[in-house]
């Protein structure tokens, strides 16, 4: 296939590059993934099943699902609103707004948890008031939800805004001219146009919400069966040298990661025209 390479580019160079690429991908990406599933299966199916149905493990799985179920819809609604404001209107401070929206991707996950501890922790700004009213945010589920909301905040807006901007508003204006109400216009014209980018953003938001470790670790308090999400439960099992059980839960999360990548790829291949890859390359931001 001459068009695949520089004319005159030696074949040995090409073969070496491909071989080196395969080696790098194997060592750096395939082996870590393989070790997860190998270790998960190390003690047999019965042990794995017992580890996954252990009450603490089930509680962790339930909590992770609960957090994702709260976080994804909230960040989807606000992400859509932000994308609409940023892509179709020019106003003072627009650039600053976009920069602030990027912040959660730039700061350390530990700082993302720390800011809520300083806000709502016992010695934090609102701590005494919350304690007096017996409201628990830190070392409880609300803190986990808040810090997860923070770290997953930009996903939907960053997928949707570039597409909204690229597609323009001709159809929306036509709908309005023809007498559609704003809500009708949004539901019947805008939403169908951006649905695949929206779905991709929600998918990525969900993956991060289920897998977040650093931010959640700071605010959770690690109470077994109560405030442990799946990643935190993995840490506890691992530190107790219960490797097979730790990798059992890790296997579930790794499977979720693979499913996320596969779904995203499928969406991109099927709807390539409506999901220009370059412009929607959210992963290019520090996560």
């Amino acid at each position, binding site marked *: 296939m001459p068009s695949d390479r520089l004319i005159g580019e030696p074949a040995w160079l090409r073969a070496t590059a491909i071989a080196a690429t395969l080696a790098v991908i194997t060592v750096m990406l395939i082996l870590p993934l393989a070790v997860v599933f190998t270790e998960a299966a190390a003690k047999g199916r019965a042990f794995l099943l017992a580890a996954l149905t252990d009450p603490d493990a089930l509680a962790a799985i339930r909590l992770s699902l609960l957090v994702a179920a709260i976080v994804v819809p909230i960040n989807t609604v606000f992400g859509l609103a932000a994308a609409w404001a940023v892509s179709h209107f020019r106003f003072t401070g627009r650039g600053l707004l976009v920069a602030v929206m990027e912040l959660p991707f730039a700061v350390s996950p530990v700082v993302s948890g720390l800011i809520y501890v*300083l*806000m709502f922790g016992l010695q934090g700004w609102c701590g005494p008031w919350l304690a007096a009213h017996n409201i628990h945010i830190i070392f409880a589920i609300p803190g986990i939800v808040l810090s997860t909301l923070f770290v997953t905040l930009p996903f939907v807006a960053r997928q949707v805004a570039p597409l909204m901007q690229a597609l323009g508003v001709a159809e929306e204006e036509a709908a309005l001219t023809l007498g559609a109400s704003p809500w009708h216009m949004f539901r019947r014209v805008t939403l169908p146009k951006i649905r695949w980018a929206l779905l991709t953003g929600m998918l990525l938001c969900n993956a991060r919400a289920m897998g977040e470790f650093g931010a959640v670790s700071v605010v959770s308090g690690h109470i077994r069966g109560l405030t442990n999400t799946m990643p935190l439960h993995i840490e506890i099992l691992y530190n107790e040298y219960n490797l097979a059980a730790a990798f059992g839960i890790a296997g579930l999360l790794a499977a979720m990661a693979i499913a996320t990548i596969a779904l995203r790829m499928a969406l991109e291949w099927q709807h390539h025209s409506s999901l220009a890859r370059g412009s929607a390359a959210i*992963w290019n931001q520090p996560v």
Partner: protein
Amino acid sequence: MTARYPALPGFRLALGLTLLWLGLLVLLPLAGLMLKAASLSPAQILALLATPRSLAAFRVSFGTAALAALIDLPLGLLLAWTLTRYRFPARRLLDALIDLPFALPTAVAGIALTTLYVEDGWLGALLAPLGLFPAFSPSGIVIALTFVGLPFIVRSVQPVLADLHREAEEAALTLGASHFAIVHRIIMPPVLPALLTALALAFARAVGEYGSVIFIAGNRPAISEIVPLLIVIKLEQFDYPGAALLGTAMLAASLLLLLAINRLQRWTAAERAYAI
């Protein structure tokens, strides 16, 4: 406030919701962090930051992150080049796999890499006879951060390589240019800014990384202890001002990097537009 499309509805509602969302979740808590750190006197700040343990943590965090980003640079360039330029079996599958470090939860990556590189692990057993024991040392941190940063390089460079006009290279070859001249004069100018952006992105991500590092690092104070872990330790000791100060320092570093990345991305876009 000028609307690009004056007839378009929903501006007030959308902007209002956005400001509420960002204000409550991002700005207010970040202001709380900085206020907490600002409540310290300069002497206290110096006493907290200039301890050997804090200084060592900053050295470890920034040093390992820089090293990992530099290791990722040639590896990522190789992967981007091969995956963009050549056609071979399973190319699309391997290309999809590049996103793994983005999608795999950091705790999972952490325990997987540790298990791989401990002395009797799949890779650790190969390195041990050579006298290399990367797990539970700064080298382990570099390994974890290299994993985390790799996709930033590949995904930043790939679109630029895909945009390159093959005709220019072919024309240069017909005119007698050497391969070196082609790489130097045609391929490098648009790729270089993308590479620098990628380097900054990988570094920015690595500096704050926590989950994938703490399992493999060994976490020995002043040797393999990163700043995010020190923040967690300060919080566990209820040293809120100390944690806030370290957190503010990390936030400042992130903001500076964000600014640099923004500049680099503009340069990349300009060079890309020029190359096309």
